[in-house]
């Protein structure tokens, strides 16, 4: 065969089905071919529906009530049977993306799972900031918005202590709050994929290095950091992501359940949120470029932030293939806090795999709920 022309091969391959049928194919092969044919028909059906009549995914369906609002930020309460007395305050990232990823779809929602486990769940939705918020700094968020929201959660839950879970950027933000206010009654702290030692934060750390990236120039020129620019940054960090996502979509396009999940996740993955200018300036300078939090040099609202002052039980979850917050920079929290009860786990998957998808429900959520349950 060696030098056979490719066109001949394709033709032979294309006509293989007919030839195989003619030459008497085995019943197993025949069954497989029939299944494959049915899958292709379903693929075409689902593809045509996605293109011609796309169904908007119904995300964020777990019932909730708004507890408090401050400017664009909201505090939501997701009520549970409350088998655990201590409620959980969830602090996600500010900017970049919307928080409905944590309550993506029924039976595929972190919030739904935690409420089913008996935790009253308080979500801090930072909101989508506009040009009027360009002056909002990281310091404002950590010293004004976050303490107020945490206090409102305590007040609403009528408890003396609360557990705090920081996801992604939400972890260093809440650590900055707790490290500067050690008197705040936090019972447990969980860091899920939240970078702490920014000297080990991977590609973003390199690209945002002060030798190459001038945050001041960006903020002074643009005011806010537009969503499209953030999107470009996240696409660049994993350039093959769209390719493999679309390949996997095609492969699973026959599966209605997969398509439903994909549509919801894809909506979220393409809905980027801008950064308020001053917030971005401080975030890049103090965290990515100067690593002040980990170096114990961060001062917010006139108070020094000491990670060592955090003495509550701490649980840290890293993801093996996380290229946004690589495991090393997340794990660093373990050595920095002053807690005696502290634990680190590294789970398979990437940054989002901890919070959404089948892997999250299998590997991550039960671990988080289990650790918290015995301490709540």
């Amino acid at each position: 065969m060696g030098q056979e022309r490719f066109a001949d091969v394709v033709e032979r391959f294309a006509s293989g089905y007919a030839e195989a049928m003619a030459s008497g194919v085995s019943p197993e092969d025949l069954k497989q071919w029939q299944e494959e044919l049915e899958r292709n028909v379903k693929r075409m059906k689902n593809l045509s529906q996605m293109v011609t009549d796309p169904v908007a995914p119904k995300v964020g369906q777990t019932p909730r009530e708004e507890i408090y609002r401050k400017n664009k930020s909201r505090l939501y309460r997701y009520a549970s049977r409350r088998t655990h007395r201590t409620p959980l305050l969830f602090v996600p990232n500010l900017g970049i993306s919307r928080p409905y990823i944590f309550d993506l779809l029924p039976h595929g929602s972190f919030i739904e799972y935690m409420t089913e486990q008996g935790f009253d769940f308080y979500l801090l939705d930072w909101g989508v900031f506009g040009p009027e918020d360009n002056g909002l700094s990281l310091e404002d968020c950590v010293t004004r918005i976050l303490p107020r929201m945490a206090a409102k959660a305590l007040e609403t839950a009528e408890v003396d202590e609360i557990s705090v879970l920081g996801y992604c950027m939400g972890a260093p933000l809440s650590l900055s709050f707790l490290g500067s206010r050690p008197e705040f009654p936090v019972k447990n702290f969980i860091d899920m994929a939240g970078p702490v030692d920014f000297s080990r934060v991977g590609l973003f750390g390199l690209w945002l290095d002060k030798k190459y990236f001038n945050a001041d120039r960006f903020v002074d020129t643009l005011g806010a950091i537009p969503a499209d620019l953030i999107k470009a940054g996240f696409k660049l960090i994993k350039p093959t992501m769209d390719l493999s996502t679309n390949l996997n979509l095609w492969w699973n396009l026959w599966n209605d359940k997969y398509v439903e999940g994909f549509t919801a996740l894809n909506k979220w993955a393409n809905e980027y949120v801008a950064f308020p200018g001053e917030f971005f300036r401080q975030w890049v300078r103090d965290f990515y470029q100067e690593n002040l939090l980990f170096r114990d040099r961060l001062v917010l609202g006139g108070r020094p932030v000491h990670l060592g002052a955090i003495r509550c039980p701490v649980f840290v979850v890293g993801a093996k293939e996380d290229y946004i917050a690589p495991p090393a920079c997340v794990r660093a929290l373990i050595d920095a806090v002053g807690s005696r009860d502290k634990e680190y786990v590294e789970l398979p998957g990437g940054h989002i795999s901890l919070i959404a998808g089948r892997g999250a429900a299998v590997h991550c959520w039960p671990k988080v709920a289990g650790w918290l349950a015995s301490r709540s």
Partner: protein
Amino acid sequence: MTDAASQQLFELWKRQFDEGVQAWSRLVSTSPATAPPDPAAFWKPILEQTTQAWARTFAQTPVTPDLLGQWKQFLDQSIDAWSRVLGQVMATDAFAQQLGRTLDQWLVAAAPAKKAAEQAVDGVLQSLNVASRSQLTAVARQIVELEDRIEGLEDRIAAVLKKLDEVAKAVTRQPA
């Protein structure tokens, strides 16, 4: 086809990739004094090699639906390999420097364009007697500030009420 066959495909691809990288390196390291490189001369052998590799694979493989699974696996591995290669390139100082430079150049171009566009839109809106974006932003900022002040007042009132409550409790505890 088995995993071994899939591995064989991947090895084949890897070899092609290595050869491609070497060819590109040769192309890039060519001194400018020599004749300009002919892209066709570079791509032709690679295309031929790829064609033959696929042809060999199909020839050795029974035509069953398993082949599609192997094909998917092969693409996954290829994408993964590309991702690793790109990751290595993007993790270099040279890339970070070039990215920073590109962004700076973009900013230099974007700043005057943004300013001109804003001025033009503001001018049009003003002539139509409609509030401009900057005016609306200023109003929104004032609302945010007002909200902060109200919140501050709420906090003070709450603190005063708490103190009053403590005083009232202390008074009721004292014997008459």
